[in-house]
């Protein structure tokens, strides 16, 4: 196993991207994709903490049937800001902007992304959009739900809808530019020998994600502009009184926001492919199918938005079409799950922390996906629409899927990012606590929803209390599970043992360079001669993986 030299042969300290320059200016004006990834890591963590704090308040309120802590209008603001911060400022940028930014150039053997300045500009746009949204939060907040449905967001608005709209509009451009940067980088900057079918599946996942970011995000930006045009110039777009149609808003909103779910989950799927291969010591079963399934999900994801509108006044015939199309997305998703499972078969599986998160992902994503097929069925959706069944379903995808993938990826690449290891026991415990806490929080919500408890109310009939208390208790455990990595990752940056270049014995170019990588990623430009995930089974000795 190669180890990371902390010093050069002449005794001087090795220069890497973290110690190449010091001071605030060196960070705020950096064009290094690795440093920008860390800027994003800090930013998205702040928004995750804020969104999580609001979730804590929501679950506190729902511990009893009565409205104990908050008036209904404050409760409306709480769940709206929870959704807005988590979706637009944590989940959508999360994996692409942090892990994708850091890893794509390393994985394809490039020195940086294609447009380093635009990369930094993206972070500033994201920060400005986020700051504007937080400002709105302190000046009245928003009470429309994160979906901003008209006429609630137009005719009856009494809160900072437009300010938040502008914040999301600006952050949306950050997302578009990041996607553009990834597409150009993957097309133009691959190392010699790095053909399309030698790309790690993480890169394929991000390529598919970038397609959605580039093609879908402008639609939500245009929708926000149309709301502004209606409010300011009284152009009839969504208001029936002046010739508009409120359902049109839902069409335009979900044309972006449903594929946005795949912006969250596709990169996580890319992470899981890496983890499953590494910790099974096997190539991914059906590599090309998994790669094309990413593209398939990205494309099919644009055809299904109407399943959010089965009971919203949409034509029943359109409902039937959207129902069938929605079920089609299950095909590429299932290909991935089956292929990961087939990869595990007869693999030499190790239970390192990233793998625990990956296995958790596969189970939770499967539950989220299968309940998605249930919701694509018109009859079932009419019954559970706007109930806690929906809440449970999309949290299984977004939290059980995307966040498990994000945390699994962070644990996997943390040694590469920081050059330090984290405590094994505590990290394994955190994976377990997150998995248990998540299920205790959200599984009862499936039952609550099926029994008829509607979402977005601060009080509920007493017969729902037992399951709600269970959910709130689970949220406490889940919160603890999220706090643990925050603590030991922070600890490890100073006190963690030094990480070797390749602590997991993994394939992939990012593991061929030192930890942390040099400023230009590789001391000598890499040349690729083999397919990805070429794990020789004979070399599967435990000591290869031990740190």
């Amino acid at each position: 196993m190669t180890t990371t030299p902390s010093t050069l042969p002449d005794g001087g300290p090795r220069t890497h991207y973290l110690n190449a320059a010091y001071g605030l200016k060196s960070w705020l004006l950096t064009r290094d994709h690795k440093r920008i990834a860390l800027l994003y890591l800090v930013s998205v963590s702040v928004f995750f903490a804020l969104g999580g704090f609001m979730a804590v308040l929501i679950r506190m309120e729902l511990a009893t049937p009565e409205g104990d802590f908050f008036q209904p209008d404050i409760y409306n603001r709480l769940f709206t800001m929870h959704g807005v911060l988590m979706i637009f400022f944590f989940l959508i940028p999360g994996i692409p902007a942090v892990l994708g930014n850091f890893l794509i150039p390393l994985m394809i053997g490039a020195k940086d992304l294609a447009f380093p300045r635009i990369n930094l500009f993206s972070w500033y746009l994201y920060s400005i959009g986020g700051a504007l949204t937080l400002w709105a939060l302190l000046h009245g907040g928003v009470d429309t739900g994160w979906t901003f449905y008209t006429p609630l967001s137009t005719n009856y608005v009494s809160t900072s809808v437009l300010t938040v709209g502008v914040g999301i509009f600006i952050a949306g451009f950050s997302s578009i530019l990041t996607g553009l940067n990834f597409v150009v980088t993957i097309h133009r900057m691959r190392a010699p020998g790095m053909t399309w079918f030698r790309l790690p599946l993480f890169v394929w996942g991000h390529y598919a994600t970038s397609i959605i970011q580039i093609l879908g995000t402008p639609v939500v930006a245009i929708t926000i502009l149309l709301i502004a045009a209606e409010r300011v110039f009284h152009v009839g777009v969504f208001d029936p009184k002046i010739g508009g149609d409120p359902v049109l808003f839902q069409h335009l909103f979900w044309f972006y926001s449903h594929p946005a779910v795949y912006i969250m989950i596709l990169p996580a799927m890319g992470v899981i492919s890496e983890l499953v291969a590494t910790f099974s010591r096997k190539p991914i079963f059906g590599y090309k199918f998994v790669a094309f399934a990413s593209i398939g999900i990205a494309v099919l994801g644009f055809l299904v938005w109407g399943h959010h509108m089965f009971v919203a006044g949409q034509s029943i015939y359109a409902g039937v079409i959207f129902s069938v199309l929605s079920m089609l997305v299950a095909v590429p998703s299932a290909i991935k799950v089956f292929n990961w499972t087939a990869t595990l078969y007869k693999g030499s599986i190790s239970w390192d922390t990233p793998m625990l998160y990956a296995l958790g992902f596969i189970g939770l994503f499967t539950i989220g996906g299968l309940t998605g097929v249930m919701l694509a069925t018109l009859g079932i959706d009419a019954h559970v629409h706007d109930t806690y069944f929906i809440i449970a379903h999309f949290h299984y995808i977004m939290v059980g899927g995307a966040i498990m993938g994000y945390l699994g990826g962070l644990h996997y690449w943390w040694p590469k990012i920081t050059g330090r290891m984290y405590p094994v026991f505590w990290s394994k415990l955190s994976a377990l606590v997150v998995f248990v806490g998540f299920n205790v929080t959200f599984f009862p919500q499936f039952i609550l929803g099926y029994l008829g408890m509607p979402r977005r109310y601060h009080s509920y009939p007493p017969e729902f209390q037992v399951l709600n208390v269970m959910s709130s208790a689970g949220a406490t455990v889940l919160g603890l599970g999220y706090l643990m990595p925050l603590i030991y990752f922070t600890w490890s940056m100073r006190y963690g043992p030094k990480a070797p270049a390749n602590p997991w014995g993994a394939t992939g170019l990012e593991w061929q360079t030192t930890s942390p990588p040099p400023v230009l990623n590789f001391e000598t430009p890499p040349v690729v001669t083999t397919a990805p995930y070429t794990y020789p089974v004979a070399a599967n000795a435990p000591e290869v993986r031990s740190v």
Partner: protein
Amino acid sequence: MSVSSHVQPLKTYFGIFGALMILTALTVGAAFINLGPANNFVALAIAVLKSTLVILYFMHVKGNTKLVPVIILSGVFFLFILFLLLAADYGTRGWLGVPGR
């Protein structure tokens, strides 16, 4: 391909600018003529022609690698999907004779 290979002579850009101005005047002129249902069609046709000129010449798609038009056409394709599935809703509303369906 070099960066400058798709840059056109200046007179081409002025020519395109002139064509865009003429087409704008045509749009305004067409708005004063009652063509019935064809009004929208004419206005949209002129707009498509204008945007094609802008994309080909001012955005340097003409003369660029083939990947660039592929990316642009994929955007148009997804716009087509948006309109097609919107039509699936708006075109079939009221077929059942039940309000809201």
